[in-house]
């Protein structure tokens, strides 16, 4: 059976679901970042799938940009997590809750 658009979208959806699950359950900031990356890549899969089946290379270009931005975002996020780390010896997301109410 050959791979159709439907399969691409299915994979995208699965990736999206796991990404969201990762973000929601992980207590470690890095884990959350991994979840975010998964979500972004799920979108990439979709884009590639559509571009493959309905022609037009724009989606491919779009996916490239997404990859670049994902990298930038990851870098910035890691920098911030690092900053938090040297102040508070751990990267537990739940502990960082002094701002509330």
């Amino acid at each position, binding site marked *: 059976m050959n791979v159709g*658009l439907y399969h691409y*979208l299915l994979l*995208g959806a699965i990736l*999206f679901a796991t*990404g*969201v699950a990762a*973000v929601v359950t992980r207590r470690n*900031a890095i884990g*959350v*970042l991994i*979840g*975010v990356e998964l*979500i*972004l890549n*799920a*979108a*990439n899969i*979709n*884009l590639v*799938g*559509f571009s493959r*089946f*309905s022609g*037009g290379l*724009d*989606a491919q*270009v*779009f996916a490239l*940009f*997404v990859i670049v*931005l994902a990298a*930038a*975002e990851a870098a*910035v*996020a890691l*920098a*911030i*997590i690092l*900053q*938090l780390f040297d*102040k*508070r010896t751990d990267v537990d*997301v739940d502990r*960082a*809750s*002094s*701002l*509330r*109410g």
Partner: protein
Amino acid sequence: MVPDLGNLLSRFGAETLLALAIPAILLADLVPGRGRRGANATAVGLLALVAALLLVLFQGSSDGAILTKLLVADGLAKVFRVLAIGTGIVAALAALRWGDAERGRAEFFVCLIGAVLGACLTAAANDLAMLYIAIETLSIGGYLLAGFRKARVEGSEAALKYVIFGAVSSGAMLYGMSLLYGFAGTATLTTPAGTSFASLEGASGAAAGQPAFLVAVVLVFAGLAYKVAAAPFQFWCPDVYEGAPTSVAAFLAVASKGAGFAAILRFVGAVTAGTTPDVTATAGDVRTILLVMALVTMTIGNVAALRQNNAKRLLAYSAIAHAGYLLLGVAVTTAEGATAVVFYMAVYLFMTLSAFYMVGLVEKQTGRADLDAFEGLGFRAPVLGVCMAVALIGLTGLPPTAGFAGKLFLLQQVFEYGGEHDSMLFFWGGVIALLNTVVSLGYYAKFLKVMYLCDLERMPKGPFAFAGVDKGLVLALTVPVLLFGLAFAGLYDVASELARGIFVAAGGR
């Protein structure tokens, strides 16, 4: 159609200038200057911002020309770009005066200009991809600025929350965009010929009819809602505003919210355009979603603000509430609705900036940001006291101020829509919005109470020592609030002219 350089420069000179400014600042910082470290970086930064503002104002960029499918230089883009750069300048000045940027002037300006660039591009984006890129630039700039003051641990906590929440939301948005791309087969929001996004048929048949289309739209709304801090994506807002330096908070409250609304207007315009029956059906659903989102947002913002005792958190919730009011204008999806949003955004800019600036001043003077720091401000700093009072009265939406005019137009649209389409939902929506105004009086009056109604004897003595520059800036920000309050016809005309392009494709009413 290869974009000729001349056309790009003539329309988007400002953006190109800002983009070039970033490396220029870094280079300038290397040159050992006489003054304090980073003096010339600051100079270059400020110069770039001012120049960009002038370029946007005077370049004939509001003739609706669409460039390379990605950017559109119409009135809407113009007003929000002016707004973004203007706020950037004010935030820069504030940061310099309050020492928010002490850790590294150059780095501060790089992030700020990056964010301003992102904001300008978001306002002008006419393509899903471009929109995502612009929003990401703006957000990344914002994450860094939020955590700029290393000294205080809240700064980094705020940045962390901002980055995680931002990443997740934009991720969801991107996923929504990818699905939309699948439906429409193209990522361009409005093609030059005016046929818009929703009416096209993508790879999987007619777009607008299927429920999945609406799901994708909601997902995209997620990202946009995060940007303007509308429900259910407003959780980050109070914590980030409290943790971030006040100047950055001001920038986020105005510039990023403005850019976000520009994007929402354009996106909703594209999604609801088209006259085919299933397009108008989905358009109806989109309007209902937007209205519900607006009412929930404003109610959460107003009600939660009642309990706040920290000035910055209170203004954060007030910003959420105002996002709710603005969404009302978007929900009616009419040209006048867009005009009302643009008008309200302009008025909101002056009121919020002057309120934030005052909070910053008091915080710098007393080191505290809670309400009691404002004790007897009305009597100890009469001029600024009156300015703060005018800003607060404007935010509440009482007549002599422009805030009232802004709310008036938004409400007029809602009631008009209620009558036009016999939908009691919009009629009651208008009434709920009005009730929210009363609730909002509650927390704005708290400020007035502390400033004026305190016990004159027990009040801490000694007037506030505010520098002339600060007074001048606050006055400059507050005078328009009163001026437009009395004569807002001019501003309204400008706003309607600028918002002409939006929703036209949607066949008007």
